[in-house]
C-alpha cells in the first residue's frame, strides 16, 4: 500500500460506486484509495480505506467532532480555515490530514503551523481537483498556494498527501498524470511518490509495534 489516492467521494455523493472507483484506481496504478463516507473493502491486493471529513468553524468544534468520527474510520480529515484555526487543528490529536488549503487565505498555513504539523505528524493534502477542473485565475491561485506549501514542506518536512477528490471515475487520474500535474507547481517525481505513500505511513504509525522474526 504505497500508492494511495488520499480521498475520493463515491456514490451517492458522486456518480461512481466505490467498487468501480477501486477498479479504475487499480488500472491507473494505485494500490489503495480513501473513500470519504464509504465502507471498508478489499479486492485482492487493492484496499479501500475510509475517511471522515470534519468541517468546523472553531478548534473546539473540531475536538467535539473528532471524538465522534475517529473510532469508525481509518483517517480523519479537517477542512482548513484561517491561520488560528489551522494552528489549532494541527495540534489536535486524532486529526491526520488537513485538506482544502487552496481554498483558504494565502497566509493561513504558515511556518508555525508547518512546524507543529511536522512534530505531530499531521499531513497536508494537495487536491488535484482545482488543477484539473478549474481554469484561469482560480487555478493560478491554487497553483501558487501549492507552490508555497511545497516550499514549507521542503523546509519543515511535514508530510504531504495527494488526492484526486474524484466524484466520478472521470475525475480519477493515473500516477503518471499525478506526477505531471504536480510538476506544474514544482514538485519532483520523488516528492510525488513519497506523498502518495504518506497514507500508508500514517496508518502504519497508528498500529502497535509488531515483533517480526
Amino acid at each position: 500500500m504505497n500508492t494511495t489516492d488520499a480521498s475520493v467521494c463515491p456514490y451517492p455523493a458522486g456518480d461512481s460506486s466505490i467498487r468501480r472507483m477501486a477498479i479504475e484506481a487499480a488500472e491507473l496504478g494505485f494500490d489503495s484509495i480513501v473513500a470519504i463516507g464509504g465502507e471498508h473493502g478489499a479486492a485482492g491486493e487493492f484496499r479501500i480505506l475510509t475517511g471522515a471529513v470534519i468541517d468546523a468553524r472553531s478548534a473546539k468544534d473540531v475536538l467535539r467532532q473528532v471524538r465522534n468520527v475517529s473510532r469508525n474510520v481509518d483517517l480523519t480529515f479537517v477542512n482548513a480555515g484561517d491561520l488560528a484555526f489551522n494552528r489549532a487543528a494541527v495540534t489536535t490529536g486524532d486529526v491526520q490530514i488537513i485538506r482544502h488549503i487552496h481554498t483558504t487565505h494565502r497566509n493561513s498555513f504558515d511556518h508555525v503551523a508547518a512546524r507543529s504539523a511536522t512534530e505531530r505528524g499531521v499531513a497536508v493534502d494537495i487536491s488535484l481537483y482545482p488543477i484539473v477542473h478549474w481554469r484561469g485565475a482560480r487555478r493560478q491561485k491554487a497553483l501558487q498556494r501549492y507552490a508555497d506549501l511545497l516550499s514549507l514542506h521542503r523546509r519543515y518536512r511535514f508530510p504531504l498527501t495527494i488526492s484526486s477528490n474524484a466524484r466520478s471515475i472521470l475525475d480519477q487520474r493515473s500516477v503518471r498524470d499525478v506526477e505531471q500535474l504536480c510538476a506544474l507547481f514544482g514538485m519532483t517525481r520523488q516528492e510525488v511518490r513519497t506523498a502518495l505513500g504518506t497514507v500508508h505511513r500514517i496508518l502504519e504509525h497508528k498500529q502497535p509495534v509488531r515483533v517480526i522474526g
Partner: protein
Amino acid sequence: MRPRPPAMRPKWRYILARILPNNVELDQKQVYLSVLDAATSLWGDAATGLMQPAVIHCDRGYVIIRCRRGSERDLATALATVTSAADRPIAIRTIATSGTIRTLRRQMRPELPDEEAEELRVGKKYFTAYRYSRQKVDLIEKHNKHPKVLFFTETDMEEI
C-alpha cells in the same frame, strides 16, 4: 512544389489516449477543440502554438494526437486537464507516446460492451445498462436531454 529535405521537416510525436466513458461518441473536431482549450488554458497561446497539436485519429474510444517533438510531455499534462467535450463530461487518459502511429495502433484494444444493452429501473428513473469486462457496468439515463451516467459494477447491480 518540392518537399522539404528530411532534415528540415518537423519532427512529430504521437500520443495515444483513451476517452472515457466508453459509450461517448465524439468526432475528431470535438476532441480537438477540447484538447486545444485545455492546452491553451494551461500553457497559454504561445506554448500551445509551438506544440501544434492535431487530432489525427478518433475512433472506438481511442484518440491519437500529434504534436511537435519535445512538447509531448506538456501536451500529456494538458490532456489530464480535459474534463468535457461537446458539453459532455469526459476524461482523456494517456496510454503511450511514440514516434510512429503504427506502434500506437498495436496498443489499441477497444473496450466493447459484453452483451446487448439492457434496460433497468433505478428508483424512479430508467437507465440503459452497458456491461464491460472486469465487471464494469455503465448506466445511462433514458429520456433525458442531458442524460446522467452512473458507473457501477456487477456487485453494485446485485445490491440495487
